[in-house]
């Protein structure tokens, strides 16, 4: 157990509504990541954080924003959800300073109608 909790685990929302997904870690790791997983695309990095208030974009960041006001929490926000953002979202943390070995949460399934 990597001490990662994602919430909510499931959410159904309508196009145009804002959505925030939360990732909470209990182990004080510096690096946190948000991925989305879609059939045929594997996992793609949305945004990542390398410290409180320090974030950067990943491969598929358009339409998403993130915030990290505390070490333990990394929030992913969809300002105005679209059907193309229907996906499973995974949070991950990096424990090893020298490698990219990641530990993942259980995922948040988001459906945008």
């Amino acid at each position, binding site marked *: 157990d990597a001490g990662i909790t994602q919430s909510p685990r499931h959410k159904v929302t309508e196009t145009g509504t804002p959505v925030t997904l939360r990732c909470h870690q209990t182990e004080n790791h510096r690096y946190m990541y948000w991925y989305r997983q879609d059939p045929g695309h594997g996992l793609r990095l949305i945004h990542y954080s390398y410290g409180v208030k320090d974030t950067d974009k990943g491969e598929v960041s358009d339409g998403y924003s993130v915030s990290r006001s505390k070490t333990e929490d990394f929030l992913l926000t969809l300002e105005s959800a679209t059907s193309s953002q229907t996906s499973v979202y*995974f949070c991950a943390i990096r424990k090893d300073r020298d*490698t990219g070995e*990641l530990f993942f949460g259980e*995922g948040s399934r988001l459906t945008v109608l």
Partner: protein
Amino acid sequence: SQQGEEDPQALSIQEGENATMNCSYKTSINNLQWYRQNSGRGLVHLILIRSNEREKHSGRLRVTLDTSKKSSSLLITASRAADTASYFCAPQFGTGANNLFFGTGTRLTVIP
């Protein structure tokens, strides 16, 4: 795209048999990682092989890396029904996990 590409996309074997999954990538890497994902769950890190290593073992897992061919393979020996999962390779092209790119995975089914 820098992601790894796994082959085959799906594999079905009998319990006790060996399972081999392959991964190819396109540019030089720092390391390559393999992950497993059970249905409906998050990914779990299995093994990491560095670019200067050719083979690595972990329990029933054996990973090889051929940087000249830009390919890696994951061998699971004496498979069990509990090995049923999707397996992903993730080449890392620089330092930091932001340079880690996941493939689309191989779906392994082990039949009891």
